[in-house]
């Protein structure tokens, strides 16, 4: 089953509605008062946002249906709504990019942020690109060194401590 933009929009719309309701529910759960002493309380804006988000979700569903109907009427075969959302290259990029980023966050307490980032650069170049491993390592090392110069030396940012001290 193709994941078309049309389906994606429907999912988006429904998520909006559900999301909005969750926001309102949480506001009540956290006891954020809508009004307090005749003034807007801490729950005023959040609840309004929740309603608005749900409302927008609904509008998206309606808009989606309307556009689909219009495309049908005009006999347009391959409208934007039928565009397939699943794109192998992008998904690959997504998994690796986010995966590597998460790796950096997790690895920092152990091997320090500079080394993690260095590894991430090499990994990304190797996996997503076609360079040789040597070139990748060189770029990784140089970039990490420059980052070190800029952030640690020039800006004096205290890098997070780790077991190996960088």
């Amino acid at each position, binding site marked *: 089953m193709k994941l078309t933009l049309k389906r994606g929009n429907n999912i988006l719309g429904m998520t909006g509605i559900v999301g909005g309701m969750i926001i309102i529910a949480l506001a009540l759960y956290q006891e954020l008062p809508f009004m307090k002493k005749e003034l807007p309380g801490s729950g005023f804006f959040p609840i309004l946002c929740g309603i608005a988000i749900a409302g927008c979700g609904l509008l998206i569903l309606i808009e989606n249906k309307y556009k689909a109907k219009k495309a049908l009427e005009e006999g347009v075969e391959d409208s934007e709504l039928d565009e397939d959302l699943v794109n192998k290259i992008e998904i690959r990029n997504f998994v690796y990019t986010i995966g590597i980023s998460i790796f950096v966050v997790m690895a920092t307490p152990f091997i320090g942020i500079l080394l993690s980032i260095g590894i991430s650069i090499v990994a990304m170049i190797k996996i997503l690109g076609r360079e040789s491993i040597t070139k990748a390592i060189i770029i990784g090392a140089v970039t990490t060194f*420059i980052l070190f*110069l800029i952030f640690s030396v*020039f800006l004096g940012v*205290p890098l997070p401590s780790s077991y190996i001290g960088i």
Partner: protein
Amino acid sequence: MKIRMMKLLALMLVSMFIFTACSSPEPEAPAVEEPAEEPTEEPAAEEEVAVEGWVPTEDVEFIIPFGAGGGSDVFARKIVEIISRNNMAPVNFVATNKPGGSGVVGYTYMNGKGESNYIMATTSSSFYSQPLTGNSPLSITEDFEFVAHMAKDPSLFAANADLGFTTLEEMVEYAKANPGDLKYGGTGNVSDDAILMYMVNELAGIELVYVPYDSGADVLAAILGGHIDVCAISPSEGGEHLETGALVPLAVSSDDRVAILPDVPTFTELGFDITHQQSRGVVMNGGTPVEVLDYYSDLFQQVSETEEWQTFLSENVMGDVFYDNEEYVDFNADLTEKYIKFMDMIERNQ
């Protein structure tokens, strides 16, 4: 072509590097106002400590639980600067900002380091207010050791000149006749500013209305623009505007009159039992050994006796109140009690 670009890039980086290298070593850089007067006391005291007890052997992390440029930041960095400029310690003190959560992030970070003799943090009003309002997982009495108390920030109660008040009395009179009319601006909602207002309300029997702002600058803008009527500010923030007369100082919350504002009465003089000021001190993690606390306490005492520190305090209108580690523990217990009462008071009134 590529090589040329690389060279240019390298040149930029190198010049940047040189620029930094030339300016970064702070203790050596200021050729302009290098204090020729080396405080003569220090070397002797330092030797004393080195011979007797514990001495640090690693660099010390000095945590500032707030962002750059703020009161805690300036306070901490001054201490660090004085220590390094006068070579008061055998190791470096490194000031690090860990802002967030009104101070909670910084304290939990320090706490996360466990037993360490090389990490400490500054305290201010939020050190008390956050745990007591349930916004911090740490306990004031159990998770901290008290090193030294260095200064007190008095609060200045001021009014917009257009209102015509020249004394606190007049304001109180007006407020009594018009309850709910006067708007009082302060930062945050459980801060010392708020505490001050509620105390005044209770003791004077009036009803000032609290308007919370995000920063002292916002409060200042609001009162100068006439949007609020009275406010609490620190004397240094108010500085200019008190002189030009745009703001009228009504009372100050310190024990004695403030040097730069000799004509402004203290609350006590006016019959109000209000001497609350923001305390600034240094704390470490609970469980730190006494010898360590003693060492740092002595070190900070030396800092407080330097001329640079005294100048700093008077420029920023802070009171010179030093307690060593033992005195601070008692003082802290007292202050915590007070804050508990304050938080109750705020809750009652909100």
